[in-house]
């Protein structure tokens, strides 16, 4: 996909937005990991697999944004 060439100020805004979004996703993963470990140590396995899938989803989203950032935007 050919992206329009952004001015520097526009690029910085987009980069800041991506950074904030990635940061929110990482904090969400931290919370997921804490809750999963707490549940696991309490003897319950019910949320282990859904939490792992959610975390993988967050990773995929993060990598997608990173790909956009590093390969398409940051040229």
């Amino acid at each position, binding site marked *: 996909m050919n992206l329009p060439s952004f001015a520097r100020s526009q690029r910085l805004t987009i980069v800041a937005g991506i950074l904030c979004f990635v940061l929110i996703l990482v904090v969400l993963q931290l919370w*997921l990991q804490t809750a999963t470990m707490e549940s696991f140590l309490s003897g319950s396995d019910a949320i282990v697999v859904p939490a792992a899938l959610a975390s993988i989803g967050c990773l995929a989203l993060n990598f997608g944004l990173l790909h956009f950032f590093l390969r398409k935007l940051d040229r």
Partner: protein
Amino acid sequence: MRVEDPDSISKSPDGRPDAEQPAWREQFPIDWPTDDFRSRRDFTKLLGLTSLAFVVGQIWIAFLALKRRTLSAPEREVATLEELPVGGSKVFDYPRAGATCVLTRVGPDRFVAYGQKCTHLSCPVIPRPEKNCLQCPCHDGVFDLATGEPLSGPPRRPLPRLKLEVRGGRVFAAGVEEGVL
């Protein structure tokens, strides 16, 4: 020097030629815009790696949960009725060496056994049958002797409880009901 793209000007933010710049700018030629941009990029890469690390952690927990589900603790004799009076306790390792548990006789025919590590910071808990509780001396955590649920103090999770069977005057541990030993 004429520059086509004003975004690429980085060395002289005031716009004056290099010859008119102060000496420190030549000695410390910091390319501020590029430096800022690179910092954001590196930080975002670090966040991506952190995200990957969390996924590895989640998969590790899932692996541990699967292992716990498939591994069943073997049945093993841990005490006899003669050696344990009502109100008495005995410490033993189950299901492996180092996994310390404590067995308490709470009535003529009633026994309870729990993992001895406090769920707060793993100090060994001490049975107090006269108070119907188990107490952790480190931070004064108290657990219910009948259920293993935390009653007061810092612990928030119950103690791991063992399945027990009494046959022929002997007490057997036959697995873990809930929790991790």
